[in-house]
Structure formats: C-alpha cells, structure tokens
C-alpha cells in the first residue's frame, strides 16, 4: 500500500525535480565550479586558478563595499522591514476605519514594477524639481537643493529607504495569519481581563512565530538579489557608496567580461543565502510544533 503510494508521490514530484535540476541545480553547480577559474567569457579558454578569485575578492575594495552593503541591507530588511510590516498588520487587525484602504495602498509599491518605481523615486528625490526638495523649500528653506541620491552623505540612506519602508507584502502575509487565529482565544483572554495590548503581546505575537520567521526569510533573502532599484537609481554610486554585490557581479560579468570573478560573487551570495536561512530557521524554530 505504502509502496504504491510512494511510486505515485515520486511520479508526481518527478517533473518538479527534473525542472529544478535542469533550471536551477545545474546552473548553480556551474557557477560554483567556474568560480575557481579565470574565465573572460565568450569563447575564451578557462584556466584553473583555485581560490585565487576568493583571495582577490578580499583585497578588492569594491567587493568589500558591495558585500558590506548587501549584508547590512539583509539585516535591516530582516529586522526593521519585517517589524514595520508586523506592526502595521497588528494595527490593521483591529479593523480600524479605512483599514482596507490602508492595506491596499500600503501594497501599491509592491505591485508596481521595480523599474517604474525607481524612476518615480529618482524624480521624487531630484535636486531641482523633486517633491522632497520642493516640500522643504516650501517650509522656508528657499535655496535648498540637496542631491539625495548622489551626495556621499545621503546616498546610502536614500537608497535604503527605497525599499525599507514598503513592507506591504509582509503586512498582507501576517494579517492573513492573524485573521486565521480562532476568536475563542481572544474571548477567553477578554474574560480573564487581558487588555487589547496584552492580547497582542501574549497571544497574537507568539502565534505568529512561524509566519514572521517565513517573512524574515523572504525579506532578508530578497536583499541578496537586489539589483534593479540600485541600478536604476544610483548604479552603485557615487563611487561605491551604494554598490550591492549583485550589481557588482553584473558589472564584472557584463562590463568587464570577467565571468570567473563574477561567479565567485555568485557563489558568495549563494553561501550567504544558505547561512541566512539556517540562522533564521534556528532563531524562529521554523518547522517545529508550538507544543
């Protein structure tokens, strides 16, 4: 009986496994393998260089900047971004007036394409005609024309808030989980005299552990592949102030044609992703029962 069921399970999983191996696993193995070669792409010969690409990376200031920024964004996204999304979800869970409108409008930045969003932001922060500077000028600072994206002092925070504040996806996921918590638990708490705030802290939040853990994984790992918004706003500049590792990987592959070195960065990103998932799994005890 079980044998027959296993055959069916295998048969149904087979297409997914084949697609996964061909589209994902083979390229990943190829990326890791070629990261040990000097390979200038195209038809050029590959020569084995061992860990030279990895050693060179740590002498490379641009790589260090890209890695540092990426990891900083991973941490910020996994903490501040998820916290913001959770707080908004907890507030909306009480269904205040207009909660559906807030839920939908908070989702808008997640729904429009990254490139369109980047162009909107570039215009909002434009030093001459941008909304931000115009508002500041209206407040009485007539000659204010700060270049948010390209002044070395503000470039990094300006790029960071491009995605940090827009946690609509996190809010939606957590809100859905809150809605599925049985009402009877809250009724019991009411009878026991627990305030709304206490109910959120001692009932809702612990029950959200799994979904918050999942959200942290989604948010943190999304930063490991963040490319579009940085490329379309600052292109990593000024200098390397906003360079991310995926953007440096792109430049190395397609502008410098150094595919071996670029694949080394790809490997580093894969390793970072695995470490992130393991740490988050451990912290949130994902997959473990609450009991």
């Amino acid at each position, binding site marked *: 009986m079980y044998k027959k069921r296993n055959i069916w399970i295998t048969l149904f999983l087979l297409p997914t496994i084949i697609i996964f191996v061909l589209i994902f696993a083979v390229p990943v193995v190829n990326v890791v393998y070629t990261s040990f070669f000097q390979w200038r792409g195209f038809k050029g010969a590959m020569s084995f260089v061992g860990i030279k690409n990895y050693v060179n990376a740590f002498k490379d200031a641009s790589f260090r900047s890209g890695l540092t920024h990426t990891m900083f964004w991973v941490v910020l996204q996994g903490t501040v971004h998820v916290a913001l999304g959770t707080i908004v979800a907890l507030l909306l869970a009480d269904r205040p007036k207009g909660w559906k409108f807030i839920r939908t409008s908070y989702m808008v930045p997640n729904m429009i394409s990254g490139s369109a969003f980047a162009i909107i932001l570039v215009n909002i922060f434009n*030093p001459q005609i941008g909304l931000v500077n115009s508002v500041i000028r209206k407040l009485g600072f007539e000659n204010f024309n700060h270049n948010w994206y390209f002044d070395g002092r503000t470039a990094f925070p300006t790029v960071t808030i491009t995605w940090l504040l827009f946690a609509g996806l996190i809010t939606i996921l957590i809100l859905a989980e809150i809605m599925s918590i049985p009402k009877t638990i809250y009724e019991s708490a009411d009878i026991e005299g627990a305030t709304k705030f206490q109910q959120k802290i001692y009932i809702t939040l612990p029950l959200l552990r799994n979904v918050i853990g999942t959200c942290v994984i989604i948010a943190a790992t999304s930063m490991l592949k963040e490319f579009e918004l940085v490329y379309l706003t600052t*292109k990593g500049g*000024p200098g390397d102030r906003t360079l991310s590792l995926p953007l440096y990987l792109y430049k190395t592959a397609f502008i410098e044609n150094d595919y071996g070195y670029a694949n080394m960065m790809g490997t580093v990103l894969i390793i970072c992703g695995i470490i992130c998932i393991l740490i988050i799994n451990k912290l949130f005890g994902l997959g473990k029962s609450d009991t």
Partner: protein
Amino acid sequence: MKRIIIKKIMACLLLVFLIVSAAGCSSKEVANNNNDKDSKKEPITITFPAFQVGVNSGAPVLKENIRLFNEKYGDEIKVIVEEIPGDQAYVDKMKILLSADDLPDLVYAGGYNLLDLAADNVELVDLTPYFEEDPKWKACFSEADLQFNSRNGKYYGIPEEKQPVGYFYNKELFAKAGLEGPANTWDEFFNQCETLKAAGITPLSMDTADSGWVSGLWLGSIVGTNGEVGNEFMNTYNVKDYDTEEFLEGITKLQKMFKEYTTVDAIGGKYENAANNFLSGKTAMMANGPWMIPDFSNPEKAPEGFAEKIGVAIYPDAGMYDAPMFGYFVASKDKEHADATVKLLKFLTNEEAQLRALNMIGRIPPSPQLELDEDTKENKPLLAKLIDLSHDAKYIYPNIQSAWYPNVVDRLSTDYPGLGMGDITPQEFIDRLNESANKNE
C-alpha cells in the same frame, strides 16, 4: 443494447471520417506548399536589433530605410528589426548575445567599441570581397574610416555617419551676459562661465549618468587640446594609465565645472536632463553632436524660435571630435545570411541613404565625395557652420565612450558625482580609473 452498438459504429465512422478529411487537408496543404515553393522562394530572414527607435534622433531615418528596403527586397529578404530603446541597453544586450555566440546578423557598434570585442571572440563577415564586387559602395567611405574598422587587413565594419562634435551656445543668453561669441581659449572659456554666472545664468549643461556623455565631451576636449601630449593621450585607445599631467589638469577643471558652472541636477543626471536644461534656456552651453540640431526646431522639445538663438562652435584652443567611427558589422553565420545582410547594409549606407539621412535629420555623410549643396546649407545653417568650423580645428580626437575600456567609462559615470561633490580629489579619481583600466587584460 442495439442502440449502444449503433452509437459505437457511428463514433467509429466519425473518427474515420475525421482522419480521412484531416489527411486530405494536410496533403492538399503540402501540395499547395510545394507548388508555392516551386513558383516562389521563401524570403530569407535576417535579424537586426536597433536602438535608433522611439525618440532617438536616428529613428525616422531607420524607419524610412527599412520601409524602402522592404519595398524593394521584401520578397527575398525579411528583416526582423528588434527595437531596443537606449544605446546602453543595446550594448549590454549585444554583449549578452555575444557571450552566447548568438549575435544578430547586423550589429551597429555606433559610438561603442563592440567591433574589437566581437572580432576577438566570434567570426565576423569579412566585407573585403563585397567591396571588391562593388567599388562604388566602397567609395562611399573614407580610407581612414575603412582602416579604422579593419582588423588584420580585412574590412569588418563601416560607419553610417561622420560625427564632428563641437558645442552649442545660446546667443541670447550670451548677449544678456554681454558676451559676443564663443571663447578661443580655455582661459577665456572659464572667464565666460564666470561672467554668465554673475549675470544669473547657469553656464553649462552637464550630466553623470549612463556614460556621462556631455561631461565626457567637455573633459575630452580640455585634455585633447592641451598641447601635443594631451592630444596624443586623447587619441590613444584603451588607455591604461591616466596619471598624466594633462589629464589631471582636465579632471581638475571638470571638477570646477561641476561645482560652479552647472545645474544642480547635473550630478546624477542623464543626458536628457542636460539636454532639457539647454533646450529650455536654463543653460548657456551644451557640448553635443550635430544630431541634436533637429531638436532645436522641434516644438515638442524646444520653445518656438529656439533654433534661431543657437550658435555652434568648436572647442576652445581649436579642438573638435572628428575621429573615424565604429559602425555596422555583419555577424551572420552562413553565406546566404551574410549576402542578404550585406545587401541590407549597402542599402543603409550607400550614397542615396547618406543623402536621405542628411536631408531628414542632418546626419553628416561619411562619404568623402558628398558635399553640402547650397539648398542644404541654407536649410541647415548650424550644420553647415559646424562643417565649416571643422576645417579650423587644430586638434582632432575621438570621444571617450568609443576610445576607452567600457569598465573605465562605467567608472567615470559612478565617480563623476563624487568628484563633482568634492568627496574625492582629482588624483583619487585618476587612481580609481587606473584601477579599473588595469582590470582589463
């Protein structure tokens, strides 16, 4: 029971009928196709991605050329034009296709050095036998242009235009500041900037995004007119050492231009920002090529009467961008496609096409035999003036975008903001360029 048997028989008959009629149809189609093949050969398909689309100034010419080509050769050659807006996006796409050994039949290197990258890695179509077959076509290009696009004694590419690049100035704004005309020396140029600034006029349009095209034109000219050494530096392709006195001087002056003489949106701004500032009369000078001239009289881009306010000049100390250019090359993989693509290439670049482009958008023909007639001179005074001025140029040099390594051009773009904001010194800027240049083999 009887009804079931009848139903089954009917189903079988229906199935047989369907099979027979389907087979009949397909055999009929095959027969028809065979007849068609006998009477008419299928057109050969060639691929041609282009960035001269949308708002690009070359778009109307390319559209017209393709229309005329289809009219004439549509039965034998089918051209698939893939539109890729933005030249940088086009170059990136070509590199990706090149890495997959899947270049299209016709590639336009334009202002970028894609030719060497392609020639080093894939087999390109040698145009020499086609030129031998058609000397009239070969005569449409100067020997300097042909040599520039040849490698190992074989012709691989041809340009579709000449690009003498000077700068434009707004005569009305100059007059407001009490200036009479363009500067003859760089010292005079910077004095003019001061005068314009004192009169409340922003002197220069500049940019940093993409390749920082406009700013790069100012920089290249400051260096390229700095004596023989500076000029030689600017005429060197794929420079690896930027640590020269002339280049340092150029970068220092460029930093001053960013800090004192341009708009606040220049740092981080694209070519479009620089162009809009000039076209709306916010800035007094903009370095750019003759392809911008039609914009001056385009009511969608500039106010009415703007064209009359504009003058053209070569750079101070008699400098001008007028070096041979990279152009089209053919990357077809078989003779049949190569022949068809060369036919298209001829159509796009022969004397007739060059004249068409000149009349439609004022593109300067690469042919040494073509000269502007009186009508054209009268209708396109700025273009005629630019060509006239080009005879006075003492220093000629290529633009940075086509002459330097792509990663150095990218580094310029990301480091101009730091330079302009004063976050890095000119020497630090140079050190970074050297670092990038030396990553190339």
